[in-house]
């Protein structure tokens, strides 16, 4: 003990020498200040880039916005068409994909939260759902192409909707399970104690208690698939003409944007910006309302 104290007394360390201590302190503060500055800079850069994207969309898309965009079909370059068929196609396929994917996702989430706690099968299902959640969406397009498009007679809106449904499922699974798990066990026990069957407990009490959270998940899923492009490339293909047939290729906003933005015609590029503006406004609006919905509940 005394040897240690003597050694430290002999060394000119920060504890003994105030000048060293001050210099060290200043260095530490400077490093910390630098990190703080870089953190703020990183946040500002990210926010500026977000602003740049939104501003570019408003500026380039806003100038082309007109009634014709919503009332006319896509046309040959130079003849000022609209995006009606793309908008309608997007609505149909997004709606259909959500309608197919949501019930499945809801049941899987229910299984994970209410039935499969601790079972290895449920563990595997949860793992696979997590993988599907982040799996490249283009592969889901290829998958549906091989499974549906090639054997069943070509590109179709229904194939596109199926691809979107595969993307919807894991999103709904994730939120449904998380929300159901937040429900206190006492609530379940109270319902059971009244003699209700388990399925009634789940449907009438748990779903109701978690409905805002579940609705948030569905909204997020809609927002996600509304902007998906890659899986539609191989499934619904896109269509420059009016078509609402589910068994034929169908237009959609993202595909039309992709096709028009890469073209050499100014009016097509202009329409691509308008489409990009529309889809971003839609997706961000759904996203923000989903967040507000969840916040009201808490």
């Amino acid at each position, binding site marked *: 003990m005394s040897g240690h104290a003597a050694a430290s007394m002999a060394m000119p360390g920060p504890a003994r020498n105030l000048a060293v201590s001050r210099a060290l302190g200043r260095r530490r*503060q400077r*490093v*910390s200040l630098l*990190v*703080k500055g*870089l*953190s*703020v*800079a*990183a*946040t500002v*850069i*990210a926010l500026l880039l977000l602003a*740049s994207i939104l501003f570019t969309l408003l500026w380039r898309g806003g100038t082309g916005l007109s009634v014709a965009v919503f009332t006319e079909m896509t046309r040959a370059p130079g003849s000022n068409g609209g995006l009606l068929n793309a908008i309608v196609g997007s609505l149909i396929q997004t709606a259909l994909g959500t309608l197919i994917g949501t019930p499945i996702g809801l*049941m*899987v989430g*229910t*299984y*994970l939260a209410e*039935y499969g706690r601790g079972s290895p*099968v*449920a563990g595997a*299902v949860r793992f*696979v759902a997590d*993988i599907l*959640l*982040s*799996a*490249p*969406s*283009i*592969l*889901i397009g*290829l*998958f549906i192409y*091989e499974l549906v498009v090639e054997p069943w007679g070509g590109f179709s809106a229904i194939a596109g909707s199926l691809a979107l449904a595969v993307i919807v499922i*894991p999103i709904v699974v*994730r939120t449904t399970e*998380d929300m159901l798990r937040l429900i206190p066990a006492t609530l379940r026990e109270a319902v*059971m104690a009244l003699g209700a*069957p*388990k*399925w*009634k407990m789940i449907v009438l009490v748990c779903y109701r208690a978690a409905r805002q959270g579940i609705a948030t998940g569905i909204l*997020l899923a809609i927002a996600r698939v509304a*902007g998906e*492009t*890659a899986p539609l490339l191989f499934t619904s293909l896109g269509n420059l003409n009016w078509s609402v047939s589910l068994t034929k290729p169908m237009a959609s906003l*993202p595909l039309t*944007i*992709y096709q028009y*933005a890469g073209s050499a015609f100014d009016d097509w590029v202009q329409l*691509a910006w308008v489409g*990009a503006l529309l*889809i*971003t406004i839609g*997706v*961000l609006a759904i*996203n*923000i309302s989903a967040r507000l919905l969840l916040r009201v509940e808490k």
Partner: protein
Amino acid sequence: MQQATAVALRARSRRHPGDAVFAAVAKLSGLFVLLLLGSLIVTLFVGGLPAFRRFGLGFLVSDDWDPVKQVFGALVPIYGTLLTSVLALVFAVPVSFGIALFLTELAPQWMRRPVGTAIELLAAIPSIIYGMWGFFVIVPIISQDVQPHIIDTLDGIPVLQDLFAGPPFGTGLLTAAMILALMVVPFIAATMRDVFETVPAVFKESAYGLGCTMWEVTRSIVLPYTRASVVGGIMLGLGRALGETMAVTFVIGNADRISTSLFGPGNTIASIVALEFPESPAGSLKLSSLMALGFILFMISFAVLAASRALLRPGLKASA
């Protein structure tokens, strides 16, 4: 208690046949998800089988992509995929770390939620919008203002000069990596923020009480406590970057050869599949090669995402 509930439940299920049906439907849905991923893997593999048969393991290491001679190799897109994704992380990780620090340590309370939401909204913007924005806004800036300066500055420096050589088109591997970086920042930053918030306040307060600066607290308390989850968040970002399609397709430059210059054009697996698919008739060897590429991409993403999940699971679930 748990066991008593279980016994009671079993007794109940006999009295309520609806229960068995509901439970069966729920379980079948769960199994359906397993089937979905299983058939996705099998489908991609079977689709790619003709290409695997034709080229064997050489498919992985051949840099040929010649539709006329019907020779296809996966090396160029694999190289492009890995290079752009890893480069994207080089840009995205420090920025995400800074954002997470800002949101957990620096920002005043009232600012945290709106700024955090704005960062998360970056993840909501569709991929194709990033592609258009990158192509019409970022590419001109890089080709006119960035590339000429870098090329001039590095002229004559042995290795660097080759790394940034080439005509200043603005498109290419580096541009793709930059767009990818911005796209994965919200995922990494949100995960980092969430795990930083799990550090018990007492730990941080103790360190601050000893006189540590903010950076010392972060380096010695927060990072060691959250290390596994932070790496998990980065892997999640990597998993996202690997399979990103539309944004990359716009800015990668679409070339079927390996470029030693970061400014050079290239292809990723996802972009080559998107770009070449329209010219690949059903049943052709080329389509099969694209499927084989898809299978390879899936295997890479699967490994990365599984690792990410294993690292994140104890702490936190990956945010959608």
